[in-house]
């Protein structure tokens, strides 16, 4: 129902959950961007923390970032020359990529896409943009396959196989032609900083800027469109989330009122698809449900309504 998410009409516990989640998102944003001087100097931080990835979409090349991007790190390793040969011989690089993949997938196997709800800065941005009053559009459910193809093609296959000559390195194609977060937090700050000296402002810059603007506009009219349709990280975590330790459970007291869908940041009716890969485990539907039918837990509640989450 419209207006359910407006302040003042929210039940108390839902409002508290929402504020808590927002607070964690903002603290995460600050924590991953401690290198504020980078914004003034135009220099990318290269300290030890850059070995570690943020659990979300934030560009390594953002001047203020103190962490690396999991997708960037993954593409960088698998596109390096000799990686494919190394896989078959068990080389060190192959082990590194398995480590990165494991790091990326592990939170997904524990609690699905939960980092999308609490940490990812680009998800936060889309949620804030949606609050801008406008006509709103839904996204067809089938479009969620888009992000799986984006993950397979632009993060895995193209960096591994598309090379200018045999023996040379591949390219991080997702970063190069897609990632709007990278454009916003790395491309534009660097361009603003010195107008083309450190960053080539050619075709790809224009292309990615256009993509960013279109996605930001889309975020005004639809809920978290990038997350649902294009984000490879969401694809990895969401898929792992289908078999994760903690899962969304909806018990038989559900009355199908759709209040969960109204408050859901990704427009999901959780009672229809409790194992949905799209669910970001934000926990707001749990508080919105008028009959307390929803939980996020590791154990399946029995029919008496007992719950552990």
């Amino acid at each position, binding site marked *: 129902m419209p207006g359910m998410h407006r302040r003042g009409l929210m039940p108390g516990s839902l409002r508290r959950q929402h504020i808590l989640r927002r607070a964690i998102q903002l603290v995460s944003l600050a924590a991953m961007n401690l290198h504020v001087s980078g914004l003034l100097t135009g220099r990318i931080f290269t300290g030890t923390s850059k070995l570690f990835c943020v659990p979300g979409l934030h560009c390594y090349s953002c001047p203020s970032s103190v962490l690396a991007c999991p997708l960037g790190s993954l593409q960088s390793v698998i596109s390096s020359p000799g990686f494919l040969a190394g896989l078959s011989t068990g080389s060190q690089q192959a082990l590194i990529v398995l480590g990165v993949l494991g790091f990326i997938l592990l939170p997904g196997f524990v609690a699905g896409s939960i980092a999308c709800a609490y940490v990812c800065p680009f998800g936060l941005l889309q949620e804030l943009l949606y609050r801008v009053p406008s006509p709103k559009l839904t996204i*067809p459910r089938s*479009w969620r396959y888009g992000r799986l193809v984006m993950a397979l093609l632009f993060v895995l296959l193209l960096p591994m196989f598309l090379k200018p000559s045999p023996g040379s390195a591949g390219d991080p*194609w997702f970063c190069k*032609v897609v990632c709007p977060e990278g454009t916003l937090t790395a491309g534009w700050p660097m361009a603003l900083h010195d107008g083309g000296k450190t960053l080539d402002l050619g*075709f790809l810059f224009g292309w990615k800027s256009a993509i960013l603007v279109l996605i930001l506009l889309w975020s005004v009219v639809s809920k978290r469109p990038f997350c649902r349709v294009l984000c490879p990280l969401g694809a990895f975590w969401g898929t792992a989330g289908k078999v994760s330790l903690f899962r969304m459970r909806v018990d038989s007291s559900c009355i199908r009122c759709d209040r969960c869908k109204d408050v859901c940041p990704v427009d999901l009716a959780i009672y229809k698809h409790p194992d949905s890969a799209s669910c970001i485990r934000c926990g707001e539907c749990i508080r919105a449900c008028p009959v307390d039918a929803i939980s996020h837990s590791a154990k399946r509640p029995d029919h008496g309504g007992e719950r552990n989450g």
Partner: protein
Amino acid sequence: MARGAVEKLWVLLVLVFLVPVVIAVMDWEKPQRLGRADLGPFLTGRRSLDSLLDCHSCRLVLVNLWATWCPSCMRELPEIDDVYRGMPDQLQAVAVCMDDPALESVRSYHSSSGLSMPMVWLSTEESAALRDDWDLPQVLPATVLFDAHGSELRRVAGARSREFFQGMVDGVEMAGDTGSATGPEALHVNVVGSRADSAYLALLSTAVELAGEEGVSVFDPGDSASRLRMDSLHLPDLGCPYAQACYGPACGRPARSTEELRTIVGELID
């Protein structure tokens, strides 16, 4: 019917992102054309060199052979790069680093060089193989010019000026292309090694015999001050004594025996 089309629209959305990929791949067919501010690619291996030479849309391919221990080479690389930048799409130029085993220091030279032409590093074995294949002189720098079909048009040994290279690619006969254009006609030998080593002493006495006392500089990799001077001249530490000779603008590869040194100096002076 319309609903079915909307359901499948995500496919189109994904395909749209392939457009810049295709554009980028099409660009690979052309010689690496970069802006003035851009550093060219650094590749290794004979296969990388061969794929760069296999340039279908190039009218000319200029291959410059150099090494970091060759000061004349280092001086002329920026000049060649200027010629390369000024000739969009017709000229492929490749800087091939030969007989220079210290890959990491070549790589770090490349990243601070500001050179836009592609650079290829060859191992010692690959350098020897290239010398055989192209019948190259024992002298660096050397530049070979090929036409669009891979036939050799011209070759020069020794460093040249930018005007010379520009004239070379413009097809104009430049005067004095068999002689050298820069540097005094004097033999200079850098001898690297420890004084306790008899091989070093033998090389040193041959060097003094050929170049005179003033024409010889000595370096000891075990001494830190000497090491600093070696690094500034890009002289590698090969783990054994060697003598590296330059005659004017042309340099020979490091010689590990006195016979080798005499052969190289002989070729340089010719």
